[in-house]
């Protein structure tokens, strides 16, 4: 089975976000970048499927050269090879166009992504790619098993889940508990250095959205503390002051 895993290179979840250039660019100074947490689930499940029944795992990132350490980490975890589309990923439609173009050239049985990136949180790219390729897309997926050419999935819905079945090929947006995150070992890190990482130029330039400006939320006012002995006062304040009851 040929699996493609699409990964993002995003600020660590604990990062304090700030902007530069008159609020038009992320301030990357001092920011630690990681693989998107949901993409890590997708990658880990792909490696598990490969370990169980053979095949190959290719990782794909649309990003500039700065993302290569993140890509190498995916190789260290067990992906066989990698492709980087050399472009700044500023619009979901543009990113999806790049992924679909790579998928058309290589025909994968399974394309795994995260349910959403943690920078733009749009949860769009899997659906866009599925539609562009004319194949099903399912998200958010909590469980994925392959039996022959059939995928059996469980998708989270509000207040529960759905059990789904579909023939491959398929695009899935993954989330926990689909797999345990894998941590690269020393051998993995060594072999990752020599695994192929192909850099390709993007096809087309079309973007359907442009960010004109970023903004930080207004700072939160001080927390009003209520002594535990007078806890009941909270309920009165929520009604009369905050007006939420």
């Amino acid at each position, binding site marked *: 089975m040929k699996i493609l895993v699409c990964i993002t290179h995003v600020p660590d979840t604990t990062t304090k976000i700030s902007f530069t250039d008159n609020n038009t660019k992320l301030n990357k100074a001092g920011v630690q970048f990681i693989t998107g947490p*949901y993409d890590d689930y997708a990658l880990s499940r792909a490696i598990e499927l490969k370990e169980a029944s053979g095949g190959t795992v290719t990782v794909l990132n649309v990003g500039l050269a700065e993302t290569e350490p993140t890509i190498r980490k995916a190789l260290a975890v067990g992906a066989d090879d990698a492709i980087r589309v050399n472009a700044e990923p500023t619009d979901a439609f543009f990113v999806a166009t790049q992924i679909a173009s790579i998928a058309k050239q290589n025909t994968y049985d399974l394309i795994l992504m995260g349910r959403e990136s943690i920078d733009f949180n749009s949860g769009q790219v899997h659906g866009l790619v599925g539609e562009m390729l004319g194949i099903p897309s399912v998200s958010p997926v909590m469980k994925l098993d392959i039996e022959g050419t059939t995928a059996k999935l469980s998708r989270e*819905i509000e207040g529960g889940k759905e059990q789904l079945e579909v023939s491959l090929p398929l695009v899935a947006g993954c989330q926990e508990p689909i797999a345990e995150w894998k941590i690269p070992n020393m051998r993995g890190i060594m072999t990752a250095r020599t695994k192929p990482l192909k850099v390709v130029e993007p096809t087309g330039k079309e973007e359907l959205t442009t960010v004109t400006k970023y903004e930080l939320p207004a700072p939160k006012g001080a927390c009003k503390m209520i002594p535990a002995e007078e806890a009941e006062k909270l309920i009165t304040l929520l009604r009369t002051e905050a007006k939420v009851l």
Partner: protein
Amino acid sequence: MSILAFVEIAEGAIKKTSQEAVGYAAEVARMRNTTATAVVLGEIASAELENLGRIGAAKVLQAADSRLNEGNIQAYANVLAQAVEKENAEVVVLAKSSLGDAVAARLAAKIKASLASNAVELPDTSNGFIVKRSIYTGKAFAYTEMNSDKKIIAIKKNVYTPAETENKASVEAFSPTLQEADFNVKIKETVKATGDILLPEADIVVSGGRGLKGPENWGIIEELAGALGAATACSKPVSDLDWRPHHEHVGQTGIKISPNLYIAVGISGAIQHLAGVNSSRVIVAINKDADAPFFKAADYGIVGDAFDVVPRLTKAVKELK
């Protein structure tokens, strides 16, 4: 040109978040000098549908096809694309949800629309069409220019409260063409908590963390939630430990909510937890540690033992009612 709102049904009723989407769509319609049409897929009683007029829908398109009773992603995207065509729609508005998100993305590719997810305000149409959306899991906003003729906006809960009128919407039957391929993904089984208030829909959420020590102690959370008419939620370790179901876990890797009131009990307030709740209108933290980070993100705080404080709050709520 018209404005569409995609309406979701839960347990035979129109979801509250979808009503917000209809109101938002009606407001965008006013800005564009046109009218809003709500699209409802599947079989639902038409009296419900007429009432969408009260919150601003001029018309309701209903595809009352039993094959659409279940939320099938591909079929829904296909039907919505046909509704966009039929109504010559410029903008499609929907509420963020596990179904809405998945459908919106496919629809965007089908009709080549600009898509802005997590919208937090009405669009600014004074110069182009700009949507303010929440990014970096609530830590920032991006003003996003929609370059395409067609636009899709997925709104967060609590972004828009529709004003009520006496109007009724005209309900029109709609028979989209469905293909076999739309149902390639087979829904084998749906497991759903019934009767509970759905977390993403709830106006009030009471949430518990590892400070509650074990699942056997969840009674105090459920009783407070019951008294408030609230949904229950939890932190990630709590669902990892199987104290509570996964779909209750909020945060960076769980669901993101924006209720009017979020009450966090025995939760430390790690940044990844806050990521899922930081756009709640009012936040209350109850923690026995005065240095818990949650107090920096909360509006009201009580330093105390949950097992003492929470039952007293429940009692106070009951006395108020």
